[in-house]
């Protein structure tokens, strides 16, 4: 551990002595730090605290009662279902796309990379509207879908499709640079050692990218559970049926049910905090394993 190695030149009172110029400018450092802290407090800590404070305003009992409401439970279930489908789908897609892009030459590669970024570039509301245009009652496939009694828009499938679209860059974007940097040597080594294509993928490629993959999945999941815009357009806001957690927060708020609204919002806030912690742990492991392999 480099941090544990004390330089023989440092004395007890002055560990890490800074160059003189930066010591003189100590007040600059303090000011900048203070500004950053105030900023953080105002834009992050305060709203976070407000969410919990509002949710708990009528006491703990009222707070927990908010979650026993059947509509709230339905929203939680739908959000979990959506993430349970969108996240694995995007993980598989992301690994496949990154693998193809990083390891094989083919025509249209840069087009594919650009397309992967599309959901980042386009407003989620537009993404939702596109699906309404395609699958809605007056859309391209609308009459066919009605004839065959398939509901996509204003129903659960639409929510899942819109969420998948909005979240599909996360895993691929994380993995493409990682896999490009890794090159093919380890796969080649595995092949000469007698591994088949599948064995190479499962025993070499996947272990090599596991931390990057996990990182992408965590971010993807956070967005999948929190997505508002695209889902709002395709959902139709049918309580107990097509309401996800973020939509339910809005509905309760518009009905002046502030305790319920903020209680449900606090769930999403907790999700964000858990995501941040996981993300930090994975980032740390990821960095450790990367420096290990060089």
């Amino acid at each position, binding site marked *: 551990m480099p941090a544990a190695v004390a330089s023989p030149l440092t004395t007890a009172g002055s560990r890490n002595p800074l160059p003189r110029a930066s010591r003189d400018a100590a007040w600059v450092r303090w000011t900048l730090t203070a500004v950053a802290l105030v900023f953080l407090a105002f834009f992050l800590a305060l709203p976070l605290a407000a969410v919990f404070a509002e949710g708990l305003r009528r006491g703990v009992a009222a707070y927990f009662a908010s979650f026993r409401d059947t509509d709230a439970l339905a929203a939680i279930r739908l959000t979990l279902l959506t993430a349970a489908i969108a996240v694995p789908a995007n993980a598989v897609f992301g690994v496949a796309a990154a693998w193809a892009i990083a390891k094989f030459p083919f025509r249209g590669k840069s087009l594919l990379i650009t397309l992967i970024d599309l959901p980042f570039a386009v407003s989620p509301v537009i993404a939702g509207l596109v699906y309404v245009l395609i699958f809605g009652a007056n859309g391209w496939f609308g009459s066919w879908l009605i004839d065959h009694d398939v509901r996509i828009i204003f129903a659960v499938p639409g929510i899942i499709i819109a969420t998948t679209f909005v979240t599909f860059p996360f895993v691929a974007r994380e993995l493409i640079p990682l896999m490009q940097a890794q090159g093919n040597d*380890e796969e080649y080594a595995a092949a000469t*050692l007698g591994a088949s294509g599948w064995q190479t993928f499962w025993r070499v490629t996947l272990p*090599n990218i596991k931390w990057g993959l996990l990182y992408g999945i965590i971010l993807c999941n956070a967005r999948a559970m929190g997505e508002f815009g695209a889902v709002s357009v395709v959902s139709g806001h049918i309580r107990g049926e097509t309401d996800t957690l973020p939509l339910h927060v809005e509905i309760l708020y518009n009905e002046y049910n502030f305790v319920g609204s903020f209680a449900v919002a606090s769930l999403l806030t907790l999700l964000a905090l858990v995501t941040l912690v996981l993300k930090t742990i994975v980032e740390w492991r990821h960095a450790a394993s990367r420096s*290990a392999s060089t």
Partner: protein
Amino acid sequence: MTLPDELRNEEPSKLSVQGVSKRFRSRGHLVQALDNVSLEVGEGEFVCLVGPSGCGKTTLLNIIGGLEHADSGQVLADGQPITSPGRDRMMMFQESALFPWLDVRGNLLFGLKLKPGLRRKERLEIADFYLRLVGLERFRKAHVHELSGGMKQRVALARCLAPNPRVLLMDEPFAALDALTREQLYGDLQHIWQERKKTIIFVTHNVREAACLGDRVILFSPNPGRIREEFKVGLPRPRDINTVELARYSTSITAALKGHAVGEPREVAE
């Protein structure tokens, strides 16, 4: 198969590269990486390939390893055409290409687990045998990131040897190491090659290294990639890289190399 059988060295292969050509398309134009290259390598011979960057040395190694296919021509190993990677031909790279999520012995076991007919206990003994051969038996539980560059290449060599191949294909395996470590590995590699006779094709940019290690040194020239000349090195083994005789060989090879390396990159018409 019993353990003593398994540890008995496989007979080295005879390789025959016959009129191999290979082109690549890169950014719209064609590069003739190999142009009608033919080469015979005898059983247990140590051959070094030298040539400027881009003359197709890695490509040739990949084709012999079965990782790439020739556009025309073929490579025979003991008379059999090579079409895919095989346990009889192991490859070593400039970067060790070790698996960092496995420990040292785990890296050796990776290939042994893929080899049918071995029991767990035998695999462990085989792994230990080769770790002893490269002098790293004490590090069997070490993680890859705890090893120095030279140790990593030793593990990579042990990993290549463990499945008991007939051929070793080595692509600039020592290029990323410091001079002292490299010199030590020249000695070790020659010693290991005496113990476990393999047919070795060794790619390098370092002429002196080639003269030190090779029975023969083959000179390549680029655009298109062709064999230009070859030198037999008749010095007794084990060879020390710092001798005057060796310097004499490397001087004449370097002179030949400079003579061929000139010339603008040439593209080939489709």
